[in-house]
Structures are given as C-alpha cells and as structure tokens.
C-alpha cells in the first residue's frame, strides 16, 4: 500500500521537474558550458523570477512598462519586431536596436545606439526568459505568480500563450530624444 501511495505521489510530483526548482547561483557562462535555455532559464522558476527582478532593476519598465508598452513596444502581445526566438531576443537585448532600444551587452550593433553597461550574459538570458514569459512563452509551472505590488497585468503564470508573429516595427516608434 505504502509503495502504491508512494508511486502515486512520485508520479504527481515528478511533474515538478527537478531542474525547474534548481537555484543556479553561479550559473551559466563564464562558469558553465553552452547555454541550456530550456532547462536553465525557460523552465526554471528561479531564473524566471530573477529575470522579473532584473526587468525592474534595469528599468526596462521605463519604456516597456509592465509589458503593456509605452515609449517602447508592448511585450505582452504576440508581435515581435525582431523575432521571438531566445537567440533573437538575446541579440536585441545585448546589442540594442536602432529605434531606441539600448544595448545591455557592452557594445552596440550600430552607432547611435545607447550602450548602458554590460549586463552579465546569464542575467541577459534570465531577462530573455522573463520577457518571453510575458507573452506566455514559458512553462506555466515555472513562470512567476502575482507580485506584491499594485496589479497592472495578470500574473505571468496566467498569461495565455501567444503565437508569435514577426512584424516590422511601426514607423512611429522612434528614438526618444
């Protein structure tokens, strides 16, 4: 009987994949090998919540608000100007974009793009995972729940997954002078 119950519970709990609960403090490059986006970021609760914290720490809110968009484009919708693939989002965050997105990876892809410091690589990956979770592209069981502030949007783990569409940036999105 005990064995049977144990089996039932292991089955249920196994849905909580171990790596989802891993807390990777000393994570990723330069200490680790190649980036395992799925395991280490997209489905990892700790990485996603760190991404959420960095999102406000690095003032992404300033332009994108809580994902609803403002000066910058909204992140909660299905539209992606430069592609929704992790590598593409990573590239956008690292090198910036011409229409006002600053570069967080140390060097810009083109002159005229504002460079604000160098966010360590694994933190950029955490941001990527979180930004994608804003449009429901992360595991619901790992995405952050509601935060302890005024609610401006449904929690990430309740966001219906959007099917990404690559749409060129509208002309009216321009670099804020």
């Amino acid at each position: 009987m005990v064995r049977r119950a144990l089996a039932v519970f292991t089955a249920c709990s196994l849905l909580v994949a171990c790596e989802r609960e891993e807390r990777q403090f000393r994570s990723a490059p330069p200490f680790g090998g190649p980036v395992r986006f799925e395991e280490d970021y997209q489905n990892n609760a700790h990485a996603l919540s760190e991404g959420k914290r960095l999102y406000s720490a690095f003032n992404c809110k300033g332009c994108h608000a809580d994902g609803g968009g403002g000066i910058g484009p909204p992140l909660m919708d299905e539209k992606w100007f430069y592609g929704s693939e992790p590598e593409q989002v990573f590239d956008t965050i690292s090198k910036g974009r011409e229409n006002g997105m600053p570069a967080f990876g140390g060097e810009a892809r083109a002159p005229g793009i504002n460079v604000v410091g160098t966010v360590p690589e694994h933190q950029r990956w955490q941001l990527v995972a979180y930004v994608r979770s804003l449009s429901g592209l992360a595991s619901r069981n790992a995405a952050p729940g509601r935060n302890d502030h005024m609610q401006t949007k449904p929690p990430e783990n309740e966001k219906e997954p959007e099917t990404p569409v690559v749409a060129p940036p509208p002309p009216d999105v321009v670099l804020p002078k």
Partner: protein
Amino acid sequence: MNSRAATLAAAMALLAAAGCAGPERHSVVDPAGVQADRIHGLWWLYLAVCVAVYVLVMAAVAVALVRRRGGSDQPLTAPPLAAEVRRGIAVAGCVGLTVVTLFVLLIADFVTGRRIDSLAREGTLTVRVTGHQWWWEVRYEESDPQQQHNAFTTANEIHIPTGRAVRFELESTDVIHSFWVPNLHGKTDMIPGHRTKTDIRADRDGEFWGQCAEFCGHQHANMRLRVIAQPEAEFQKWLAEQRQPARESAPKSSQDRGKGVFMKSSCVLCHTITGTQAGGRVGPDLTHLASRPRIAAGTLENTRGNLAEWVTDPHGIKPGVRMPANPLAPEDLHVLLDYLESLK
C-alpha cells in the same frame, strides 16, 4: 542518579549565569547603550529568580527520591488524610509564592518597558535604515529643507555620536527583516508596508555588530551591519566627509581608466557613485566605499584581494547574493580596483 542529573543541570544553569564572556561586539549581556543596559538589569532579575526556582524544585525532587524508596508494593489508593492535607498546604503555599513572584516580574517588566520607551530625544539625529535582500541601506536625513543637499546615503555601516539619542526609521523594500544591534537595544522588525522606528543611545565608544534577525532568504546569515559609536567631533568629521561627492580622479590615471571600466561594465547599472553618472539604486551606494572597513554586508574585510574576489565571483562567497559575477580582463580588474580603492 537523579540528584546527579539535578547537579549536572544546576551546574549548567550556573554556567549560564556566569557564562557571559562572549564576543563583546554583539552580546546581550555586554550593554553599551542605555536601553540594552536596562534590559540587561531586568535580564539578571529574571535569570536569578528562575535559577532559584529551578534549584528549589530539583532539590525537592532529589530529596523525595532519596528519602522515599523502600516500602511495600501494595498500591495506596487512599493515602492518610493528615499527610495529604499537609502536602495540600505546601502545594497551595508554593502556588501562592509563584503568583506573587510572577506579579513582581510583571511589574518589573512593565516599568522597564516604560523607561525604555521614554528615551530623552533632545537634539536627535534621524537615520533611515532600509532592509534589502541582503544588505542595509542607510540614509542620513536632513530635517531642514534648505539642507537637503546634505542628506546622504551609505550602506551596512552606521556612525552615531556617543551619548546622543538617535532615531532610526526602519522600512523594507522586499521581505521582512529585523534590525538588531544586541549591545545597544532589542530588535525591531522591518515590515514592508509598515513604518517602524526605534531610538538608540550609545553610552560608550566602540564598534558594535548587528545582524538581520528575521529569516529573509538565502543570505540571511550574511546580512550584517556595523554601528560605530564615536565622540561628537569625530562623528561630525565623518559626516562632513560622507557629504562630499566622490573625489575626481586625475585624467589618464589608472583610477580614471578604472572609472571607465566601472561605467561600461555591469557595476553602473546597480550602484550609485555621487558626482558620476552612476546612479543605480539596486545595490549599495559606493561613493565612499574605500572609507568602509568591510564589504559584502560585513562579510569581508575591505582589502584589495577580497574586493577582487567579490567583484569577480561573489557567489563563491555568498551563494545566492544579488551581485552578479563579473568576468573582467585582468587589466580591467586592476584599474577598477584602483578606482574603487580611491573612493575614500
């Protein structure tokens, strides 16, 4: 055998009474402030009473044990009435004594509480301490609106003038922390959404350690702060220094190049250095980093080696800390350290 147990335990109780040769930088029984001192007095009263009670009860048990062994196994369902009455009186007496003692203790506690709350607050200095996971933001307020430019922020280190009452306004930006400097006063929780405050007066100079006393996550253990009580003059000197912006470094000097590294690495995103464009509020203010004897919320001494280790691999020292690892080229690291060490 139980008398042995009793003596063993009693010996330990005495050890407790005597055992106060603890570390003097953070000890409840080595008060350096008026409140800690009053609590200390109350502490001894309570402890003396408790040890006395303990010894008496254990003695009673021990005596019963040695004098009432033999005799028949025939169970006694109706013990002789006279003896029972005697015991009844004894028990009633003990209970009465207990009630009186407790009442005394209650009064003593209430009086002490009142005296702790009524700390004379003339010429009070106000310091706002904000708990973060896992460090302390310390802001010296200026009551006078004209003097606002004199308000400044530092971290994990609080200087106070000896003999003057200081009002601490406590708040938290994330989870519950608790502000505690044992030598000076008991703890006060910092609860998000609730403003709390505590008044402290150090009566002798010295460096006293405090530590977060409410579990707050991975690095709760390494969330320390230091309170330096110093004579008024020294304190004013320190204030004057802290109010200055970071000193300019000579152009082309290694410090200057280090500043460049700082501004284009991740440091600038989280830390503030007044007088530069670095204005991040996520991490501790570094304007006068080099003037602080310890870094990493009191975990490491502020030496070049420690600083280097802390910048490159903080998680080796404090796993889970918010500070990210910064893989820097050796050259960049050296000039960065030069710069940080110049922030006196």
